[in-house]
């Protein structure tokens, strides 16, 4: 089994295939095989993450698949394209393959230059030249320097669709988190007895989709994975969910589908805009500026709404509480932990870099930032009003995803790092909180906050672990949430950022009021979390809860790793994650900001 992204992505699917062959009555074996599959996936993800860190720390020493995309281009893809030619012709072709996009454009602009090449190289040579040139255009983005584990294989040749997978600092943490949550969720789902086989198969299928979304660098491939995620999720909510599951599942499905259609339209428009047509994300990023601003704004809005639904951004968020409330615990965990990040990831990977003129347009910047502020404050107020434990955590997710938007809108290094880190830390803390809700729900069979109380005396270990999750979510220093929130605020306040860079809007106070308002969300966050702790864990124990057992081994396995992560990310944020994601984010931020009329100070 080779260590690469394809194996990583499809191993859960393969496991699902094996599980399919096991008779349904063999529930123990089904669970065991599924968990083993996810564990192997997680080990592979960890191995790749290690390799990524090492390669990032010392790019020159990287070998094999750790080499960055631009190195792969020179060392692998161009030689592969010219493979089979005679040595003489090969050297000749490689000599005239353009090294950069500029070089190609210059060539293109030159009247008859390409025709001359065609006659010069001959049919065979020209074909190889064409392939190599195309790859050059694809991989010669600044972003390619931090892309690793590249796999680029033609897939649907007539449409120029490639199987193009790679990860960088933006996607690596999310891939790893997906693999981790896959293990934890399946262990936690050990008690599922209704349609066990289908549940585990769908869950594994879901994991493949999620990892695929974060690895795909071909827009079409991305879209396929995006849709692949949708289906198992729909079934998981619709079959194993709570009483109102059909409504929630359909709402989730249709809502996301509406977004997908918008994304599909924008994707096709971009595909046909350029000649030759391409879905390659790196190429689309480079070619972005060729689309006039007006068209960019339309496309941006389409893609933005697609991702906004997923994030979810106000006012497209109402599917989330419903889906969470109805979904089984493990599904909620994946939904909050990873699925929501597809939205934020999409904005970073697609909407912002590909349409950077629109993304840095003042109106859009304000829109995103203000939506972020609304998410933070409005989500927190809604969370405060909840009496359903799970719905409260769901609204807290809405609130926390607002920080991602705020940091993204600021588009300063600090803000972007904060936003991306927030996706990761929220993935940890919200996943943990949904597990916490699940543990108590399994015992009490209700989630009414006003009906709990005194659980701390009955289940001290559970309370202790839950407290870590709650305080991480509250943004207590020393735990993961604080770091990302603090960075987001610093970034949003910072004059380096977009909204307030002097050269851009001429005012340095613009984003600061937003920070002031968002800070209100921090206080409200403390309010709803402390109030929840009080209502569930503190106070006198009711008689009906006196027979509750403390956390079982299964629940501990699911909860403890996340608790440890909360602390590790909170205490060693730089060493654990920021050092490794920064280079990619810097490249990305620079690229997006290159569309600015005046690049902000400090760039």
């Amino acid at each position, binding site marked *: 089994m080779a260590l690469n992204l394809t194996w990583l992505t499809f191993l859960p699917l393969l496991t699902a295939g094996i599980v399919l062959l096991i008779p349904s009555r063999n529930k123990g074996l089904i669970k065991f095989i599924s968990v083993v599959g996810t564990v192997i996936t997680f080990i592979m993800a960890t191995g790749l993450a290690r390799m990524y860190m090492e390669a990032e720390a010392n790019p020159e020493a990287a070998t094999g698949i750790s080499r960055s995309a631009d190195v792969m281009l020179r060392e692998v893809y161009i030689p592969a394209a010219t493979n089979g030619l005679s040595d003489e012709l090969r050297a000749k072709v490689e000599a005239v393959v353009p090294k950069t996009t500029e070089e190609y454009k210059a060539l293109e602009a030159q009247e008859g230059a390409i025709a001359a090449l065609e006659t010069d190289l001959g049919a065979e040579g020209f074909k190889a030249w064409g392939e190599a040139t195309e790859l050059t255009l694809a991989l010669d983005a600044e972003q390619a320097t931090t892309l690793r584990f590249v796999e680029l294989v033609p897939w649907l040749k007539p449409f120029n669709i490639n199987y193009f997978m790679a990860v960088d600092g933006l996607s690596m943490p999310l891939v790893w988190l997906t693999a981790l949550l896959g293990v934890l969720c399946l262990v936690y789902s050990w008690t599922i007895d209704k349609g066990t086989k289908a549940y585990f198969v769908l869950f594994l299928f879901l994991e493949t989709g999620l990892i695929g979304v974060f690895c795909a660098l071909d827009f079409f491939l991305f879209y396929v994975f995006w849709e692949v995620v949708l289906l198992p999720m729909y079934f998981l909510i*619709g079959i194993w969910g709570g009483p109102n599951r059909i409504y929630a599942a359909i709402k989730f499905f249709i809502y996301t589908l509406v977004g997908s259609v918008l994304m599909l339209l924008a994707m096709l428009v971009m595909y046909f805009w350029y000649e030759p047509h391409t879905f390659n994300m790196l190429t689309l990023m480079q070619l972005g500026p060729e689309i006039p601003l007006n068209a960019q704004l339309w496309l941006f809005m389409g893609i933005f709404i697609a991702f906004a639904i997923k994030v979810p951004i106000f006012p497209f968020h109402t599917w989330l509480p419903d889906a969470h409330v109805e979904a089984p615990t493990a599904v909620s965990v994946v939904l909050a932990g990873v699925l929501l990040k597809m939205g934020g990831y999409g904005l970073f990977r697609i909407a912002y870099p590909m349409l950077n003129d629109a993304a840095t347009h003042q109106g859009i910047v304000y829109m995103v930032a203000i939506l972020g502020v609304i998410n933070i404050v409005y989500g927190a107020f809604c969370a405060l009003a909840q009496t359903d434990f799970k719905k409260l955590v769901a609204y807290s997710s809405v609130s926390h995803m607002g920080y991602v938007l705020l940091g993204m809108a600021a588009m300063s290094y600090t803000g972007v790092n904060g936003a991306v880190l927030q996706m990761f830390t929220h993935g940890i803390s919200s996943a943990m909180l949904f597990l916490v809700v699940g543990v108590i729900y399994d015992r009490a069979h209700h989630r009414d906050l006003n009906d709990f109380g005194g659980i701390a005396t009955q289940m001290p270990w559970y309370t202790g672990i839950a407290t870590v999750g709650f305080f991480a979510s509250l943004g207590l220093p020393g735990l993961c949430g604080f770091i990302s929130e603090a960075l987001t605020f610093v970034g949003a306040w910072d004059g380096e950022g977009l909204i307030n860079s002097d050269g851009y809007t001429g005012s340095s106070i613009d984003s600061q009021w937003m920070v002031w308002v968002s800070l209100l969300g921090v206080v409200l966050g403390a309010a709803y979390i402390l109030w929840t702790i009080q209502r569930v864990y503190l106070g006198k124990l009711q008689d009906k809860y006196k027979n509750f057992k403390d956390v079982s081994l299964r629940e501990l396995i699911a909860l403890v790793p996340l608790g440890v992560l909360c602390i590790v990310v909170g205490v060693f944020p730089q060493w654990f994650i*920021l050092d490794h994601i920064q280079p990619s984010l810097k490249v990305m931020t620079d690229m997006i900001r290159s569309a600015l009329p005046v690049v902000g100070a400090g760039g």
Partner: protein
Amino acid sequence: MPESTAAVELCKLALIILLLPLGAFIIQIFFSKKLPREGDWVSTVAMFVGLCMSLKMLFVDLFSTPTGITVQKWFPAQDSIGKFLLIGDPANPAFRLDFGIQVDNLTIVMLVVVTLVSFLVHLYSMGYMHGEVRYNRFFAFLALFTFSMLGLCITSNILFLFIFWELVGLCSYFLIGFYFEKKSASNASIKAFMTTRIGDLGFFVAILIMAYNAGSLEFDKIFESIANGTWKDKSILALGGICLFIGPIGKSGQFPLHVWLPDAMEGPTPVSALIHAATMVAAGVYMVGRMFPFFVGEGYVTGDWWGSEPLIFVAWIGGFTAIFAASIAFVQTDIKKVLAYSTVSQLGYMMLAIGCGGVAAGLFHLTTHAMFKALLFLGSGSVIHAVHSNEMSKMGGLWKKMKITWLTMGIATFAIAGLPFVLSGFYSKEAVLTTAWAAAKMNPGAYTIPFWMGMVTALMTAFYMFRMFFKTFHGEPKDKKAFDHAHESPWTMTVPLGVLALLTVLCGGFKFINKSDYWFLNRMDSEILAPYTHPASVNATPVVDDPEKHVHPLPFTDGRVHMQSQKQKEFREAYGLGHGTVTYLSMGAFLFGLLGAWFFFGPNSPGSKKDMLAPEAPLGKALKPLNHCLVNLWFVDAFYYAFFLKALHVIKDISYRFDKYVVDGIVNLQGVLCKAISSLVGIVDYEGVDGTVRGIGKTTLSIGKFAKIFQTGKLQQYLYASVFLAVGAIGLTVAIYLWVG
């Protein structure tokens, strides 16, 4: 500062002191059940070792050099783990934060105070908490608190200070709510956390302002940037100072965010002594002292501190809090509540001192207050332990039963009331008031009223403290049964009382060490302030020895001379000359307060015999409206409940209703419309007009049908469906391509 080996050694010592309680916490959390006595001795021993090391640092500080230690900084690990946050290019980072240790006189004094009180409180708790539920957790959180508090004192940058600041708040939250079965306890813990967090917003905004304008969060870098003019936006300095002070307003219980501190007395009494009297609440004072140059702001460039808005703001808030809280303490009947309001009032004093430009005076009062207030709380704990009630109406006459408690608490009461020339409280209070006096000379418009507020508070303090003392220990026993049961506490409780009483007497002597008239002023002020005080623009002159005006400068170890601007010179002289007046005034305040308390509450005094303050007595009647205000805490809490809490509930309900009925309503309405359209289309379809009607209605319908199918639970169907839809998605795209292309 260059790193010398000795400096690194000192910082290493501080790091070990910091890590000891953390280790104790970890042992307590995971292994305490397996240890004898549930491991209470682990934390206690850790605190004792920490205390010994802190004392060692203090002696190095006191006796090795004439001015003590200059600022020593050390970054324990500069490699990848040591960098806490580093965004952007390492050479020119967008944002950078390292965990650094900074040791100077201020740090050392705080280390000694924290470890000392913490150790004594640990010892005391071994007796007081004996047999309580969650005994091991109690010690675990005390240890965690000590760790956070020490971290707060030794860190070298403002964001780490904030981090530890929040962590002490967390421990305070856990310990106030220690008896979480009681609703009032968990309410109080939430109130404490929320109120301080509101204050922390201001703190955090100030950090953002500093990060943006100074480009660094290290204390010295921030001050340097103010002094040398690299601070980006000068106009925001004053706002930044005021924002920064909102943090201490929350944490140190200043008006108007003081409301949580009296409620915090729901926690066990040792916690009240350690956290809510001696150390954590004083963290705000420490922070204002540490950030003093930032509060002075532009004043550093001009050399005139007394026109700086944030500083005047600090002085006013401090002075007002002092007098405000003292007034409420008049009518409290719960012994711990009296002490709580007295703490608020004394914290106001410390703020007043710093706001008037006397960091050292404020910190001096912090130190002495830590001793006598911890003593008062531990003593009150001893009393509560004996009579099993907080209410003073159940006490009285206890001095016969509890001699040690009576004696030690008596010393503390005299100290806080300011017994002239004997106890530490007098000296520190005098230093505070003299500072305010001198500031009033410098800027009469801004500082005269704060000075008089402080002066009147001195009188009030003596009055309400003796009221408490007389009501508790003297007069007839009011509750015979409780009195009969009362007994002196075990040695683990009385020994800390004795030690604290001794220190209460002695620590006024800080003043006389090195024969300097005001050791604190010289040491701390010179160390905290001097390196940043005098940019080239200030026409500064050396401080000269002038016994007549009580000015005694100390030279620096590295040969620098202590410089001062003209304004600072005037301030120093005013301070020297103010001693006499202030001493007479505070002696008067002490006497009148004592006499007044004795008259109304003393044993066999005329006032108490006639019960002149009873509601039906003429004096009681006249004071009724005032009493009404005081008993209701000037309606501040009531106002918050009626206004803010109500508003919060209304807004949250409106938000959620809006979400449920408007935002989600639109979504559902669309669903209903789609359904209606699709059934319409379905009918048309059924009628056989066309079999290939497409559209969103159809989609909705077929999804609805799907959902029904799924109930069968047959796996193949799900998979077929998945594959079908996946293929469909691809097919659709290809079709569109073919159609368009």
